Every structure is written in C-alpha cells, then in structure tokens.
C-alpha cells in the first residue's frame, strides 16, 4: 500500500488520556478518547489539512504523531521509520525528520533564551555542527530564510511581535533539516494582515525545501487555500478525507457539509442569500462518545442505524474517503 512517494503513514493511532479522581490516591474513573483510531497517509511534498471543531482531537493527533504525547496504540511511519516505537539513538535520528510549529507564538518560545539559543537548540540536540559558532551562522541563515534580519540573533522573544515570533518558531522547526512539519494552528493567534504573510512564507519554504506539512487548523477558508488534501475530524475520528477541491465542492459527510456551510464568506450578497445547515448543540464529551456514528445526535439526517452501527470507512470515489451510512 505504501510506496516511495508516501512520507508519512499513520495507522490506527489512538491517544487516550486517563480521567482521575482524588489527589493522593488517584483512581482512574474514565478515559478521554481524544484520538480514537485514525489512519491516513501523506505524500512527499504534500500539505494535508486537518480540520474540526475545538476538542475534536486534531491538535492531539498532530502531537501524538510526533511522539510528544506517548501514543495509546497505533503506529506512525515517517520516511520508512517507526517514530513511536524507536528508542535512544534511533529515536533521535527519526525525530530529526519531523518537527512542529506551535499555535501560540507567546507560549512556545522560552522568554529567557535569545533567538540564537532558541533557533540553534535543535542543532545542539541533534549534534549537527561541531561548534556554537557554526550553529550561530546557521541560525543567521535560518532567520534570513524566514524573513527576519540576522542581526536580531541576540534579542529576546518579548522584543518581537506575534507574527515575528511565529517566524522564529518556523526557523526553529527548520533547524534540524526536517522532511515533515506539523503546523499546529500556526496562524490562528495572528491578525488577518499578518496571517497572509506567514502562510505565504510557509508555502515558499515548502517549495524551496520540498517540505511536507500536516496543517492543523480550524479556519476552513485558509485550509482550502493552503492544503492539497483535507481530513475532517469529529470527536477523535476522521469522518472524511478528500482532495481539497473535491471536499469543498462535493462534501459527502453531513458533518463536513454543516461545517462548510457555517463558514461566512466576505461577500454581503452571497452571505445573505446563503442557506445554512445550523447544527444544534455542542460537540459531545469525548469521555463517553455517542454509540454508532459519533455524529448521530447532532446529525440532521440521521437514521435508526446510525445510533448503533459504526459506519464503515470507505473509498467512495478515487481518493475520497468517508464514514457515513447514508453515502452511497
């Protein structure tokens, strides 16, 4: 199934967090099924979008894929190596290939470190250059690549704006020469005018360095712009995956349809004329996800079967996968 064009292969990945009660004698009273068995692959040079409402598990999925959270079950193969089960030197070698850009440019940079320390940290961890001086030189180059002036190397994070900090985060992610980067909502904390700058930078870097991205986001308009394929998550599972234009123009899962119809368009006439599928209620708790299809309590077209039977994950047309009983 996987060929040389596949860079990332995720199989049945699960991440459950225990829910405990009590302070000293902690008892496990349940599990949050944040990611509950997801499988997909990403081709080399491709950008896969991962969308869904808050709490659907998209961020957890990205972090678990890189081993930032120990996975409960499943495997993640990156460039032929199993990233979750490798240990010691092997693990370090694989982790060099996969990096992450975080959502919050304020919380993800150590305020006591200079830009130089932050950006050269991955090189130090992976022992990439012999001397600090070489690492600093490389850090300077990286700053240039992300559009920051190299003389800012000895500044501290608080001296930068949100957009500039996000650029520092990107430079750090590039420092170990990765093949694959998880972009975890990299623009959602930024202002509109700055978002476009960062997105254009990510696209430029992808072209220059042949990077592969997993782009986790809730902004469906931006995902359409930047991604080649899009996966839609709901309560810890993927309900639909398709090529970008196919998903946006021919969404099959009722959840995808509702999600897309909720996104406002900056065009007053279109916006007023539009028919919306407004979902009732909120996302249910992932501690006790609904039986059968997890979306059935909010689904406008649910039938009896949806309550009991988990819908099969099927390829309904080439490259278009969906899990819904009602799709033929």
């Amino acid at each position, binding site marked *: 199934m996987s060929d040389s064009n596949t860079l990332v292969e995720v199989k049945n990945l699960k991440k459950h967090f225990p829910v405990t009660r009590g302070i000293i004698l902690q008892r496990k009273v349940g599990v949050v099924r944040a990611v509950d068995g997801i499988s997909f692959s990403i081709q080399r040079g491709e950008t896969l979008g991962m969308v869904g*409402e*808050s709490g659907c598990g998209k961020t957890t999925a990205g972090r678990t894929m890189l081993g930032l959270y120990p996975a409960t079950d499943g495997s993640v193969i990156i460039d032929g190596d199993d990233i979750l089960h490798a240990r010691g030197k092997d693990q370090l070698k694989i982790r060099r290939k996969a990096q992450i850009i975080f959502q919050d440019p304020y919380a993800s940079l150590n305020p006591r470190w200079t830009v130089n320390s932050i950006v050269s940290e991955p090189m130090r961890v992976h022992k990439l250059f012999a001397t600090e001086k070489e690492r600093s030189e490389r850090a300077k180059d990286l700053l240039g690549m992300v559009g920051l002036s190299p003389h800012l190397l000895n500044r501290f994070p608080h001296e930068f*704006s949100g*957009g*500039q900090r996000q650029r520092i985060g990107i430079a750090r992610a590039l420092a170990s020469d990765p093949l694959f980067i998880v972009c975890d909502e990299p623009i959602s904390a930024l*202002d*509109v*005018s*700055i*978002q*476009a*700058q960062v*997105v*254009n930078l990510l*696209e430029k870097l992808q072209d220059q360095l042949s990077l592969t991205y997993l782009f986790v986001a*809730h902004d*469906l*308009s*931006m995902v*359409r*712009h*930047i991604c080649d394929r899009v996966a839609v998550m709901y309560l810890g599972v993927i309900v639909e995956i398709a090529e*970008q*234009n196919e998903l*946006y123009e021919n969404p099959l899962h009722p959840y995808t349809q*509702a*999600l*897309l*119809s*909720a*996104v*406002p*368009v*900056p*065009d*007053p*006439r*279109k*916006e*007023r004329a*539009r028919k*919306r599928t*407004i*979902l*009732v209620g*909120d*996302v249910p708790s992932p501690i006790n996800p609904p039986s059968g299809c997890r979306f059935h309590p909010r689904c406008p077209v649910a039938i009896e079967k949806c309550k009991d039977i988990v819908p099969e994950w099927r390829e309904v047309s080439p490259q278009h996968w969906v899990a819904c009983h009602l799709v033929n």
Partner: protein
Amino acid sequence: MTSALLQVTDLQTRFHTPEGIVHAVNGISFHINEGETVAIVGESGCGKSVSMMSLLKLIPTPPGEISSGTAIYRGTDLLQKSEREMEDIRGKDIAMIFQDPMTSLNPVLTLGRQLTESMREHLGFTKEQAEERAVQMLEQVGIPDARRRINEYPHQFSGGMRQRVMIAMALSCAPSLLIADEPTTALDVTIQAQIVELVARIRESLHMAIIWITHDLGVVAGMADRVIVMYAGFIVEEADVNDLYDSPGHPYTLALLAALPRIDRRRDHHLKSIAGSPPNLLVAPHGCPFAPRCEFVIEKCRQENPPLIQIEKNHSSACWVDVKTGAPR
C-alpha cells in the same frame, strides 16, 4: 434626516503608561441610527474595543483618559455623566457583550443570580418576577431546560452556551443599543453560526441597534448594514456594507480583503499579504498611520493625516489617493 440614536464626535482616548502615552483612539466620529447594525472592523490594537468601552465609561482612569469628545445618546452626552448616572444607563439602555464568555461571568454565582441582578436593579422587579423573566430570556436564546439550569454555575455550560447566557443577560432589560465586542471570536464556526442567527432573530423582534466589533470580514458581510473600518485608532473608512465589499475606498480595506482566502473559490494565486505590522501606538501619530504599509503611498501621506472625506453617497474614506485610479484626490 432622522436623528441618530448615538452620535459620537471627536472621541479621543489615551492611556498613560510608564513607557509613555498610548494613543489608543485618536478623535473618531460616527453615528448609529435606531435599529441599525453597524460593524466596527479592525485588527487587535486598532482601538475598536477601547472606543466602545470609552462610550460606556468602562475605561479605568487612570491610566486611561478620555481626553476629548462627545457621545450624544438620546440628547445627552454620555461622557459628561457621573458614575451613578452611567450605572442607570449601562445594562438598561446600552448593553454590552464581550469576547470571552468565561471571564465575563462570575464563576461563583449561579446564572439566575447574575441574570436577575440587572432587572432588579433597573426595572425594580421582585426576585420572583425577575426569575420568571430570566427563564423566558434563556428559553428565547435557546437554552434547553432553562428552569433547572438557572440554578447552575457558569462552568457547567459550554462556551457557546455561556455566550447565549451573556446575550440573554444583555437583552434582559430590552436595551435600545447592544454593543457586541467580538462575541463569536472564541467560538467554533458551527457555534458562531448559531449565535449570529440568534442575534439576527432577536434584533428583528426587539428593533434594537447593534454595534458589532469584529476582525472577521466574513461575519460582517452577513449581518451589518454599515461598516466602519478602524486602523491605529482612526476611522479609515465608512460605508454601506455592499459598497464596502464592492468598491473599497481605502488601501487598508482593499488589502484586508485581498489577504483573505475565500472558501467559495478555488485557489488561484498567492494571498496578497500586507507588509510590515501595525504602528506602535506609543508614538504620537504623524501623517497617515497606514502610510508605511501602503502600496498607494505618496509624499503627502507621510506629512499629513488625511481626514475622513465623502467619496460617494454614504461612503467615506480617509485617504489622499483614489484607490480606483491611483491618482491623488
């Protein structure tokens, strides 16, 4: 000409900080008519929230200072009123809902207690009357099982539900003006759609004027009658909603619209980004605040800040250049 419900003239708000004076709002003038929905659009730090907080005298002074301006609401100036008089107006005539529904509700009081407070204060309701009305309000904003849930605490509600509670609270005294400060920014799109629909429905039934503060040009398109665009404490453009999207008159509005990806369009180009970042408000404004980032910039822009001038009927822009032709005005 119908008289405005609220007429704000030359409002200026500053903050005195250890680093210097922050020029948050720099002399803005606008009006809102009865029953009208006006959106104020801009990025963080453009002064959209501060200007609204100034109107309700919710700016802590010091460090804040409303250094000039008038805000005539139904014939009297809000900015001249005492704190006691403002307490009568806030919640009763002008209500406000905030971005973060968690921090704007008191976590240790039941919803019932918080919902009934303003009605008992402003309308002289008894506890029972106020509770009865609170249950009705919660039902109206779509909270199921309202009679039981009124005794619950804010943490027992989801983000979207809390925002509904905030709306119920704001509407409980039937205000003539609702100021909504990014009420859907913290919410998911599906929940945002629910809230927008709810507000639109209530606006119809109460014939209430709304000032909707947001940075989301998509939400604005669906609900506003008129749009005010702010940048660095100035109003840079004001227009009816269709005109603003059809023919933006200010380079900033133009650039913002071009920087937005559209869900209803296939990708055909790179996003047009706006170079640089918004100006430092600690520096006293000199020239047009957008000049350093503007692609239409001419020498005059750096010297003199353009006033808001009418370019078409009901459409004003603060720019020395006609963005359609690129020629100076």
